[in-house]
Each structure stands twice: as structure tokens, then as C-alpha cells.
């Protein structure tokens, strides 16, 4: 009987872990270089997906589907300290929690596996949890985005709300004194103290690894189509508080935090994100060319604002990534002025001219633009925008 039970136990374990839906190689590195907007360079730690990849802040974003059985194969190729991966907010068990002293550390040239399931769609973080005050400041962090179980790229969770595009923003800071070799290369011995500098006075404030003029530079504008509804994944892994302040015209609505829907959505242009928190916010774009917004970093001891930087959402008809997972399509397109959406309509659509003038709003189907001249128009439906060509 005992043998049978043992067999069943081993079989079920093997069977369980045999059903890995998502497997990824992650490499911990200690010898990267980060270049700030003013040209200054500093040493960083970080995570990469390949040995040849450059170490960047933040590390690669991990995209999962809810319910996936996940296996991360973590290699430490850092020529230095042990590292781990803590799956921040994913509520994994102790063995896979990535806290060295309570589970396991991965030494240089060694590797370890992290197994978990991600049951709740949302925005999460991963980071090293060895000497974490030093190793996070050094750059060992990234985002985890869990999508609905069908992998829908344009829906926040199962039976949730759709959007046309998402923008993950991960805030942090760097105090370059903390990046000196004497701090980063300390001997890591669990029986010995790990020291941090006497003060933390960051001199660079980052979003997605960019700072200052990099953030407002046209090459870093967040590109979307006019009238799109976009989904902001707002996270903070730094040691300062962060406020994302959007123009009121974008009607910011925050609907989720830390991977869970809020009991009631919050309509507020300012979203305060404290270290380790994540918020998910809808913005409704219009036809303006650009929507600048502000990112403030503030000191948690004094509440003094240390940095106020500008980022830009730019609307454009070109240079926007092709969307492969639109929840709907239209046919025919091009057309003679009569076309249909390929699903039962559940809300109004809007037709816009390319100049941004709203021509029509209705649930009527088939859709008619027969009264208008031949040319291109925009169809907005469920937060998505599609080009319609009448010829």
C-alpha cells in the first residue's frame, strides 16, 4: 500500500511539473554599464535572457498567462555574489520565494529552478532578494505581466475591460555612490554584515531605465493611435515614492492594483505608487497630437519632491506597432461605404475623419459611411482604433 501511495505521489508530482506552460532562462549579471541622459556611465547589475545580451535596467519583462505553470531556469553568471529571483506579488510558496536565507541562493556559475503558477492577471515584479537593498539599487529587477488565461493582449483580465494598447512604466532611482565597486563587490557571507552607504541621495530618477531628457525625447514617446483607450501599468521598484500625473482630459481611471481588481474604480489624474506597488489605469486618448504627463519622485522621509520629469503619449497614424490580437475586425475593408464589425455589437462605435472630427456614433450595423467622400476614416470600438478605407 505504501509503495502504491509513493508511486502515485511521485507520478502526480512528475505529471504536474511535466505540464510546464511557460519556461524561461534568466541570467543574473554583475558587470553591466548604464548610460544616463547626460552621458555619465555607472556600473549596474541586472538580468538578461542570453549571455550575449547587454545588461539593462530594467531586466526583460516576463509575459505569462493566468493559470500557466511556470518554470524559470535562473543562472548566476555574475563573477560575484549569489543571486535569486523573488516573484514580488505572485504569492509563491516559501521554496520558490527567492529569499536566500529562507529558500536557496544561486552561486556564481550555478543555476536553480523556480516553479509557480500565476492565477491572477495583473502587473507584478521580480527582483533579486540577496542583499536586496544593494542588489535592487544595482539594477536587478523587472516586470512580470500576467495576461488573461487565453493570452488576450488587449483585455485586463477574464471578462474584464478591453483596451487598444498598454504601456508598462517601471519607476526607480539611482544614487551613483551606491554603484561604486566597494559597495557592489562586498564579500557575500551570510554570517557577515552587508553594508550600505550612510545616506541614500539618488541623483538620477528613472522610468523604464530612462531619465531626464531621455524620457521626453521623441524616440521615447509612447505611440498610440488617436482615440485609443490605453492601459497604463504603473509600477515602482525604487526607494522613493512616485506620482504619475496625467492631464485631466485623459480621464484617468484606476481599476486594479497589485494584481487584483479594485473594489471600486478610482477616477483621479494623480496616481501615487509607493515602493513595490503597482497600479493599472485606463486613459482615453483623443485626437490631440501629444499628451505630456508628469512623473514625480518624492523622498519618503521628507515628502519633498526630488524630481519632476515629463513623458509624452503621442498619437500617430504611423510608426505604431501592428496589433496582432485585436478582439474584432471589419469586413470588407476597403469597402464601398458599407461594412460590418465581425461580432455582435455590445457598445457604440465612433467614426472619425483623419482630422479628428467625429462623424458618427451608433450601434447600427452594418455600418454606413456612404454619405462621406472616398478616403480613409477611423473606426473606434471597444478602445481600439482601426483604419477604414472607402473607395
Amino acid at each position, binding site marked *: 500500500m505504501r509503495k502504491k501511495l509513493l508511486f502515485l505521489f511521485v507520478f502526480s508530482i512528475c505529471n504536474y511539473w511535466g505540464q510546464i506552460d511557460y519556461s524561461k532562462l534568466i541570467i543574473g549579471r554583475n558587470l553591466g554599464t548604464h548610460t544616463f541622459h547626460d552621458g555619465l556611465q555607472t556600473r549596474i547589475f541586472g538580468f538578461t535572457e542570453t549571455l550575449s545580451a547587454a545588461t539593462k535596467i530594467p531586466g526583460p519583462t516576463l509575459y505569462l498567462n493566468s493559470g500557466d505553470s511556470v518554470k524559470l531556469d535562473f543562472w548566476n553568471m555574475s563573477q560575484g555574489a549569489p543571486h535569486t529571483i523573488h516573484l514580488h506579488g505572485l504569492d509563491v510558496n*516559501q521554496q520558490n520565494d527567492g529569499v536566500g536565507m529562507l529558500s536557496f541562493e544561486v552561486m556564481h556559475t550555478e543555476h536553480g529552478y523556480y516553479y509557480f503558477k500565476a492565477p491572477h492577471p495583473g502587473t507584478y515584479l521580480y527582483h533579486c532578494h540577496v542583499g536586496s537593498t*544593494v542588489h535592487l539599487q544595482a539594477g536587478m529587477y523587472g516586470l512580470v505581466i500576467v495576461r488573461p488565461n487565453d493570452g488576450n493582449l488587449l483585455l485586463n483580465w477574464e471578462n474584464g475591460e478591453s483596451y487598444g494598447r498598454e504601456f508598462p512604466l517601471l519607476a526607480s532611482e539611482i544614487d551613483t555612490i551606491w554603484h561604486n565597486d566597494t559597495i557592489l563587490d562586498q564579500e557575500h557571507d551570510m554570517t557577515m554584515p552587508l553594508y*550600505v552607504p550612510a545616506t541614500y541621495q539618488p541623483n538620477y530618477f528613472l522610468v523604464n531605465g530612462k531619465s531626464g531628457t531621455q524620457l521626453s525625447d521623441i524616440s521615447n514617446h509612447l505611440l498610440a493611435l488617436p482615440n485609443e483607450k490605453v492601459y497604463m501599468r504603473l509600477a515602482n521598484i525604487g*526607494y522613493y515614492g512616485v506620482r504619475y500625473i496625467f492631464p485631466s482630459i485623459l480621464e484617468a481611471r484606476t481599476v486594479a492594483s497589485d494584481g487584483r481588481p479594485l473594489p471600486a474604480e*478610482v477616477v483621479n489624474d494623480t496616481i501615487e505608487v*509607493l515602493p*513595490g506597488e503597482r497600479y493599472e489605469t485606463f486613459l482615453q486618448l483623443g485626437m490631440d497630437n501629444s499628451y505630456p504627463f508628469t512623473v514625480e519622485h518624492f523622498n519618503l*522621509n521628507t515628502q519633498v519632491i526630488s524630481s519632476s520629469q515629463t513623458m509624452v503619449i503621442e498619437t500617430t497614424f504611423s510608426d505604431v506597432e501592428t496589433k496582432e490580437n485585436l478582439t474584432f475586425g471589419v469586413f470588407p475593408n476597403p469597402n464601398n461605404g458599407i461594412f460590418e464589425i465581425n461580432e455582435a455589437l455590445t457598445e457604440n462605435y465612433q467614426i472619425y475623419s483623419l482630422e479628428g472630427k467625429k462623424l458618427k456614433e451608433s450601434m447600427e450595423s452594418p455600418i454606413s459611411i456612404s454619405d462621406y467622400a472616398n478616403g480613409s476614416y477611423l473606426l473606434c470600438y471597444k478602445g481600439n482604433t482601426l483604419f477604414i478605407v472607402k473607395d
Partner: protein
Amino acid sequence: MKKFILIVVSVFFYLQSNAANVSIRLVIKNGVLEFNDGTTVYYKIFTSSATFANNSDLLIFNEGDIVTLKVVNTTSENHGLSITGVLNLGVITASDSIQQTFNAPPAGVYRFFDPLNFPYNEYLGLSGVIHVKAINDLTPYFYWDLREHQLTWNESIPLGNSPILNTYQPYYFTINGNSEPNINLDIVARVIGNVGSEVRIVIVNNGLSIHSMHFHGFHAHLLNNSKNTAHEGREKDTFPVYPKEYVVLSFVPDKPGEYPVHDHNLVAVTGGGIYHAGMFTTLLIAP
């Protein structure tokens, strides 16, 4: 035998659920707070203990209790004790005492503090946590009183100075006056629970910094949030506790193990420049 059990249970519920006359004598004392690395700072507390402690007393009442509070000032400075919206004892001069009887306020969390020389006397330790429990609330609670400490402030304030808040840069971080690993030796703070059994934690920030508390292993249900009542009902793994505010949370562990909880401003998990001798504790969950 059945009769005996019935009597015991009845007495138990009587004690738990009925208002009582409660007498408390708190002594204001000057002393020294010692951190893990042996560093000491000048400190003050409200205490019922004969000896100096790391933190002011935790006061727990039942709703409807009639409380007689006597505060004795053994220091050479004037002090006071106030509970916002409940009572203010006024100035208690050096070597004097004041006694007042009051009805315990409605169930909830309150702070008591010295309103004189605000916020400096309070910063030096003269503040604490009051929990008024609802009738028949038998849930076990844990209590975290969050604070930070900047050595130069503890030297400067007793000399009559008022340090500039905009330059505040604490170097030690404590829960109930302890840093890691000693937080886990404090039975009031260290969460020991069981899978399937609700855990409740009262977190009060008696410091001056914002603390962003992160839970490993579990999301917490925010029952009360004095700063943002609109946040009540949220499920969070990380949430801020603002200065002079509190959060009451609940969670039901779904798995056993030992899981850290710490401030995710990771400077606050250090103490005296050493990782992780700061605001860091663990939840110990039995199967």
C-alpha cells in the same frame, strides 16, 4: 462536567464581551534605546513597566470600558498625553501627575501621544497605540508600531533644538522598538499562524516617514485605512502606512512556510548601514 465547561465558557465570554473599569498608570521616563549594533540614543516612553522599555505601552480596551488613566511625569520637562478626539490631559509638569477617567471610544485604532513640542517629543518615543476592540471580537491581533530614528535628532532635540523636517534622514528603523532579528522575538509583533486561520495585524506609523509595507506569500485585505478610507477593501501585497496613520489588515494563509514582511523602501530594512537589520520580520505559518 458539562456544567463546569458551561460555567468556564460563560465566564470567558463575560470577560471578553463586557465593559469593565480599567485602571492604567503610565509613567513618562527618560532613558536609552539601544540598537542591534550597540548604538544607543536618548529616548522617552510612556510605560507601566518598572524598567525602561524599547517602546511605549500598547493599550488594549474593550468598547464601553471605563478607563481611569493616570500619567506620572518622572522627567524634568513638561509633557502631556493626548488621544485625538478622546482626551487631552493638558500639561503635566515635571515630577507631577494627572489622572482622568473617560469612556473608551468606539471600536477602532487610536494613537496616544505627547502633543507638546510636536512632533519632537513624540518622535523621541512619547507616542503609542490604543486598540479598542469591539464587543465579542475574539480575533487574535498582532501589533506593529513603526518608527525611524536619526541619531543627530535624538541628540539635538533634548538640547531644545527643532531639527528641520526637510532634512530628516533616519538611519535605524524599528517595529515596536526592535529591529530584525529581534522583531521576531516580540510576541506582540511576530505573526505565528496556521493555514486556514485568519490573521489580523494593526499597523500604526508613529514615525515621520512613509513606510511601504510588502508581504511575501500573501495578499492582505485592508480592513481599515485611516489615511485613505477609500482604500479599505483592497487586496494588496504592498501598501503605504503614512505618518500618524494606521492600517488594519486581515489575511487567511493558504500555505505553510516562513514569509518575510518588510518596508519596500529598502533603505528601511537596513539598520546602522547594515542589511537587513531594520524593518524586516517574518510570518511563520504552520500547516
